[in-house]
C-alpha cells in the first residue's frame, strides 16, 4: 500500500508544479510534456499510431515522458511503462486516449515503430543460461514458453501480451486454473497445447509460428526444434543469482518495458532479502529446516532453489548435503537431522496433519513442537525459481521468526501481484492463503 501512496504523491507533486493549464490544441486528444531529446522518438511513435504530429507542451502535459530517474517512484516502487530503455511515461491525469497511446508504445507494434525510426535496436544478442549466444530479432511478437517457469517470468516482466502458448504449473487443480484465468483471461487458450519440457508437438509449434522459444536447459526435445530454425533461449535459475539472471534475460528479450520491469524486480528482490537479513542477522543458531515434497520422506537436495529460499529466510536446510533433484531419505536420517521446522512444498499432497498423525514422526522435534507448515502459493509455486519466490522467503522468515519481521506475507503478496502481474489479489483470500 505504501508504494501506491508514493506513486500518487509523485503524481500530485507533478500536477502541483504545473499551475496553469496550457492551451491544448483542438486537434490532439492529449498533450505530451517531454524533454527535447525524447521528442523525435515520441513523434515517430505518435505518427505511427495517429499519422499526425504530437502536441508537445512544456508544462502541464496530459502525458509526461521523461528519462529523469528522479521521476521514478522511490523505494521498492512500481514500474512506469518504458518506451525506451531509460525513458518512461507518467500519466498526469486520467485520459483514455493517452492511456491507449502508452499501451501502444510498450506493445510490439510500438516497439516496431521505434525500431523503424532507429530509436531501438533491430535485434538483441543475449547469452542464455546454457552458455549459448543467440541473436533475437526485435520485436518479439509471438513467444512460446514450454518451460512453465519461463511462462511465469514472461507474465512477471509484463510481456504476457506477446505469449502465444505456454506451460503452467498447478493448473490441473481447478483452484489453480481459476486463479490463472482471473489473472489472464487468455489462459485457457495459451495453455491448450501439448507443450512441456519433455514433450512437444513440433507441427503444432510450427503452426503457432513463434519467433522465440524460452525453455529450460533440461528440455528434452531441443534437437527437433533446431530444425524449425526458431531462436530459443535456455533458462536455468536454481539459485538467487541465476534467477535474477533469468528474469533479466526474459526482460531483455521482450523490449525496453519488460527489461525495465525485470530490473525493478531485481531491486525489489534484493531489498526484501536485505531486509530479512537485517532482521535476522543477530541470530547465531540458524533454525534447521527440512523441506519435503509430495511425500513426507522426499526431500530437497542442496542443489535445489528451495535451499536458497531457506537460507534467505534465515534458516538452514538440513538436507543441503544431498545432490541432484528430489531425494528419498529414511526416518533414521531425519532423526539424525532432527529438524526444528518442516516445510511442505505448496504442491505436496500431504498436510501438516499427515505428520501429526504419524506415530513414527512423533520423535522429530518439528513435529513435537507443531512446527510443520505447508508453503502457500497463488499461481506459480513459491518454492520454484519464479519471481513469486520472494513471497516464499517472506512467508518462511515469518514462520521461522514470528514477530521479528515488519514484512507481512499477505500485504507483500498484494503489492507484488499488483506491480509485477498487474493483478489485484482478493485481500481476504490471500490473507487466508498466507495464514496471517
Amino acid at each position, binding site marked *: 500500500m505504501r508504494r501506491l501512496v508514493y506513486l500518487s504523491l509523485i503524481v500530485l507533486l507533478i500536477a502541483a508544479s504545473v499551475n496553469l493549464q496550457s492551451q491544448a490544441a483542438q486537434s490532439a486528444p492529449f498533450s505530451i510534456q517531454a524533454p527535447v531529446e525524447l521528442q523525435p522518438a515520441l513523434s515517430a511513435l505518435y505518427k505511427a499510431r495517429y499519422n499526425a504530429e504530437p502536441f508537445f507542451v512544456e508544462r502541464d502535459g496530459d502525458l509526461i515522458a521523461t528519462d529523469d530517474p528522479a521521476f521514478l517512484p522511490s523505494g521498492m516502487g512500481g514500474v512506469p511503462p518504458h518506451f525506451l530503455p531509460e525513458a518512461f511515461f507518467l500519466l498526469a491525469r486520467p485520459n483514455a486516449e493517452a492511456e491507449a497511446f502508452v499501451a501502444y508504445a510498450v506493445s510490439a507494434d510500438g516497439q516496431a515503430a521505434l525500431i523503424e525510426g532507429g530509436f531501438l535496436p533491430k535485434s538483441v544478442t543475449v547469452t542464455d543460461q546454457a552458455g549459448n549466444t543467440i541473436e533475437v530479432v526485435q520485436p518479439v511478437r509471438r513467444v512460446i514458453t514450454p518451460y512453465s517457469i519461463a511462462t511465469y517470468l514472461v507474465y512477471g516482466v509484463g510481456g504476457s501480451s506477446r505469449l502465444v502458448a505456454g506451460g503452467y504449473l498447478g493448473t490441473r487443480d481447478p483452484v489453480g486454473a481459476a486463479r490463472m484465468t482471473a489473472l489472464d483471461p487468455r489462459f485457457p487458450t495459451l495453455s491448450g497445447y501439448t507443450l512441456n519440457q519433455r514433450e512437444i508437438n513440433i507441427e503444432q509449434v510450427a503452426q503457432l509460428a513463434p519467433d522465440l522459444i524460452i525453455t529450460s536447459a533440461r528440455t528434452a526435445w531441443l534437437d527437433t526444434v533446431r530444425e524449425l530454425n526458431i531462436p530459443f533461449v535456455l533458462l536455468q535459475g536454481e539459485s538467487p543469482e541465476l534467477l535474477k539472471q533469468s528474469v533479466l534475460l526474459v526482460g531483455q528479450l521482450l523490449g525496453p518495458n519488460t527489461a525495465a520491469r525485470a530490473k525493478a524486480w531485481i531491486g525489489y528482490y534484493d531489498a526484501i532479502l536485505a531486509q530479512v537479513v537485517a532482521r535476522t542477522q543477530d541470530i547465531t543458531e540458524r533454525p534447521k529446516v527440512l523441506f519435503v515434497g*509430495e*511425500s513426507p520422506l522426499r526431500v530437497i537436495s542442496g542443489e535445489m532453489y528451495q535451499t536458497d529460499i531457506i537460507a534467505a529466510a534465515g534458516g538452514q536446510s538440513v538436507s543441503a548435503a544431498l545432490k541432484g533433484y528430489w531425494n528419498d531419505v529414511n526416518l533414521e536420517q531425519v532423526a539424525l537431522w532432527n529438524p526444528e521446522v518442516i516445510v511442505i512444498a505448496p504442491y505436496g499432497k500431504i498436510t501438516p496433519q499427515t505428520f501429526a498423525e504419524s506415530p513414527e514422526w512423533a520423535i522429530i522435534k518439528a513435529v513435537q513442537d507443531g512446527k510443520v507448515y505447508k508453503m502457500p502459493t497463488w499461481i506459480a509455486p513459491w518454492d520454484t525459481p519464479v519471481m513469486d519466490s520472494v513471497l516464499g522467503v517472506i512467508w518462511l522468515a515469518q514462520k521461522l521468526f514470528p514477530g521479528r519481521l515488519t514484512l507481512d506475507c499477505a500485504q507483500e503478496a498484494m503489492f507484488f501481484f499488483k506491480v509485477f502481474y498487474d493483478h489485484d489479489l482478493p485481500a481476504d483470500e490471500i490473507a487466508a492463503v498466507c495464514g496471517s
Partner: protein
Amino acid sequence: MRLITSRAWRRDAAAVSSFRRQLAYSSLLLPIVLILLSLLLGLYNIQPQTIVKALLSLIFPQAAEGISATELTLILRIRLPRVLAAALIGAALAGTGAAFQGIFKNPLVDSNLLGVTSGAGFGAALALLLGGTALMVQGFAFGFGLLAVMLAYMGSRLYSSAPLIVLTLMGILIGSFFTSLTALTKYVADPLNTLPAITFWLLGGLTGVTWNSVPLLAAITLSGSLFLWAVRWRLNILSLGDAEATALGMNPTRLKLLIILCATLMTAAAVAVGGVIGWIGLVIPHAARLLVGTDHKQLMPMSLALGASFLLVIDNISRTLLPAEVPLGILTGLVGVPILIALLRRSQTVW
C-alpha cells in the same frame, strides 16, 4: 581328470545329495540371523544392547526402561517393520520366481511373466495420479497386479492349442499393455508432484514402510510360501510338461492355476509394498540352483531363504550407504545383473 567309478560316483553323489538337503534346510536360518543383524544397522547410531533391550520390551515391557523414545521408535517402528518387509518381499519374489521357472519349464522367467508387476506398477501410478493415499496406492497396485494376470490368463483361454506358449505370450502382451498405460499416466501426470511420485515408486523402495504395510504382506507371503513349500515336489513333475504330469495322475492345469494364483498374490503384495524391485525372481533361483541343484524339494526352501537374505542385504545397503536412499530397483539391477551373468556362465550344465 579324476576317473569316477560307478561305485565311487554313487558314494560321492549320495554325499552331495544329502549335503544339499542339509544345506537347503539350514539355509532357512540365514534370513533369521540376517534380520537380527540388520536391526543393528542404521544411519542413527544405536548401541546393540539398546536394540536387544528394545526387542525384549516387546515381550517384557519393563525392558524398555532407560531407552529414549527416539531410539525405541526407530528400532521398533522403523527398523523392525522395514527389515521384516525386506525379508518377506525378497522371499516372495525369489520363491515365486522359482515356482514360475518350474511351471513354465523355463529358467529365464520370473513371476512378472504374466504381467503382475506391470499391472501393479500401473495401479500405483493410477492411484498416485488420482491423488490417493499410501493405502490406496498399495490397494491399487495389488488389484491391478491381479487384474493383469487374470487378463493374461483369460486371454490365453481363447486359444486351445499350446496353452503354455499362449499364456506366456499373453502375459508379455498384457505386461507391455500395462507398461504403456503407466507411460500414459506419466505423460498426463503433473510434473510438479505426481510425476516424481510415480517415477520413484517404479524404482522400488522400502523408505516409507511402517507397521501398516506389514501384516497383510506377512499373511500373504507366509501362507503363499507355505503352499509353494508344500507343492515343491510337484513342481518337479510339472516342469516335465502337462502330458507327463497327467500320465502321473496329476491335474497339471489345476495345480498350475493354483500356483499362478498363489505366486501372483504374493508378487502383487510384495510389489504393492516395495514397488518394482527387479531381478530377484530371476537371479536368486539360479543362485539357489547352483547351491542345491535343480530339485525343487531343496530349491524352493533355498530360494525363499536366499531371496529374503539377498533383499535384506540390498536394503541394508540402500538405507545406510548414503544419507539419501538408493532406489532398490537400481541396486538389485546393479548387483543382480553381474551375478546373473556369472551364474549363467557357470550353470550352463546345471539345467
